[in-house]
């Protein structure tokens, strides 16, 4: 029983980390129609930047949060102006996607130049372990669930209930029409990239103490992509549910097999796509003749 509780908690917290990355990815897809292949690297960059704030600048927690938001936002804007903006009118639509692939390599090399190739250790944001029977739950895992849940609620209210969110949604749905009615679409797109980077960067901040601050953190993107597809491509709600499911499947699959844990995750993904090709929350889009 305690084993199941423990697997559930670690599964949900891993799912939350994937979901933070997936939400950022979906926001960019909705805003500019481009799948950002450097999103795992932005997650990794977030981890390194928070390492810098906490262990090199020795800022207190509130300072890390405030400075983190500012630094992430700047990085998000810089990323947009470097990888998307110059290529946005390219006649070959794949150009931007290729630029994100290039950015993924450049970002990995950049952090290697700045912070070196050794993995770095980061103190847990919340130290200690909670014991329930024979189950042990690190507070860091519980903190991930708490912060992840909070950020998901924030994104929901931002996009569904706020005026700024509506401007961003309008830009995402039809940029030309949004331009015509006077919405500053550039600002809306920049804001989307900033929020996206903030989500991924926060994910990196939360993951760093548990999994070390290293270039390999970017590999989390594979599971985030799987979660997005499982939940239904293009749906923020679907991405969240899909990623949490991926985290749980990954965790509980250990009860069946240790060696083929990832194979089970992707087997479930294939089965879901065969049964429901649009994913759990995806909607079929019929093309007009």
């Amino acid at each position, binding site marked *: 029983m*305690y*084993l199941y509780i*423990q*697997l559930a908690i*670690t*599964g949900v917290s*891993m799912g939350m980390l994937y979901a933070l990355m997936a939400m950022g990815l979906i926001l960019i897809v909705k805003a500019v129609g481009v799948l950002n292949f450097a999103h795992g690297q932005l997650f990794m960059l977030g981890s390194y930047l928070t390492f810098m704030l906490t262990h090199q600048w020795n800022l207190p927690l509130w300072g890390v949060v405030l400075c983190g938001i500012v630094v992430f936002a700047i990085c998000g804007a810089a990323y947009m102006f470097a990888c998307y903006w110059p290529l946005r009118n390219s006649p070959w639509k794949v150009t931007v996607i290729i630029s994100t692939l290039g950015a993924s390599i450049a970002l990995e*090399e950049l952090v*290697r130049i700045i912070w*070196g*190739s*050794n*993995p*770095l*250790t980061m*103190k847990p944001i919340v130290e200690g*372990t909670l*014991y329930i029977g*024979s*189950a*042990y739950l*690190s507070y860091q*895992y519980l903190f991930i669930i708490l912060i992840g849940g909070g950020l998901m609620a924030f994104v929901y209210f931002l996009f569904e209930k706020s005026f700024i969110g509506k401007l961003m949604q309008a830009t995402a749905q039809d940029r030309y029409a949004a331009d015509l009615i006077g919405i500053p679409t550039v600002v809306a797109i920049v804001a989307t990239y900033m929020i996206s980077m903030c989500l991924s960067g926060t994910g990196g901040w939360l993951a760093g103490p*548990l*999994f*070390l601050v*290293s*270039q*390999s*953190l970017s*590999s*989390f993107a594979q599971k985030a992509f799987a979660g997005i597809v499982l939940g239904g491509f293009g749906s923020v709600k679907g991405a969240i549910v899909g990623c949490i499911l991926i985290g749980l499947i*990954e*965790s509980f699959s*250990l*009860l069946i097999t*240790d*060696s083929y*844990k*990832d194979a089970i995750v992707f087997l479930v993904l294939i089965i879901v796509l065969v049964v429901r090709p649009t994913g759990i929350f995806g909607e079929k889009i019929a093309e007009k003749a």
Partner: protein
Amino acid sequence: MKKALALLTVAIMMFSMVACGSGNNGNGGNGGSGDGGDSSDPIYIGVIDAFTGDRASNGEYSKEGADMAMNEINEAGGVMGREVVLVYEDDQGTEAGGTNAFQKIVSENDLAAVCLNKYSSMVLAMEQFVAAEGIPAICCGSSVNIESSSTPNLFSTRKSDSGSGVTIANWCNELGLTKVAILHAPDALGTGMTPVIEATFEELGIEAVSVQQFATEEKNFAPYIAVIADSGCDGIIGIAQQQEAGLIMSAIGEAGLGVPCIGGSAFAQQVAIETSGGACDGWYSVTAFSPTATNEPTASWIADYEELYGRAPDMTSACMYDAVKLFCAAMEEKQSTEAEDIIAWLTELDGYEGVCSNYTYNGTPMLSSSEYVVQINGTTSEVVSRVDS
């Protein structure tokens, strides 16, 4: 007609000059090592390791050890009066990168010998190219597949995983453990050593209550530890590379299981100790090298290394240092840079004193004849026992 003949003559002359030149300089890269190179030409030795990618930290230690050996040799007059130059090639820490790096380094340079990294999977991927080239190669890998390799020019500065597996199982017995869980890597190290431990456990009457193989590039070890904790084990064995080793120690520390833990060599390496966040305290490790070894000449070498680089050496530094030294000793003794002479010298080894181990050829590529059982205390590992074979 005369013009054509003149052109033909010039072409033949040019061809002859190029052909004569290639006798000394190989195929266009750094020339002059083998094939009876000029006495003033440097001797080139290749070093292949990860200098970028996730395993780049290993490459740093490797380079430090190899550079230290090269500098010492050159300061002492070189080999046969010739300067030794190391040529580095980045394998990016991947099997594909390793095979590409090997082919590149041997095709672009006239190498007398080549040192390979410690990742057995990568060494095994490179093995067919090593065999085809016939160049003497010393790796730092320890897989049972390297031990059973029939490539005559491939050697290792390590003991085989099968030997280390027996030592780990015996140490579990020494600690009085009866129900042990094993968490191992999916690579050649993990899949090679685990069956040996299980077989030795059977002989010793120890039960392997849970055997978990973690996924490639795994980061989240909490679920594995939960399953292991549920198995009711009284001890845990970890077999992994250094980055995973740090995470495993950290996850077990977080679980607060309070049982003795024994790891492979990676668990006592600096990167693992530093990344475990203090959870490495009390862990035992069976390792080819300990930075706190007190036997000579190892202790003096460690002091020199620390003075030179400002940090303690890792097993990789020591293995690579010994690999370069072994090649140079072979060339000096045989007064030759020919591959067959170097290989012949290596197969005649009997008790050569290195910093990592004493080296003896026993019919397999694994030249090392000793290893340590160490216990991690804070951020350093203390030698508990030295196992000689």
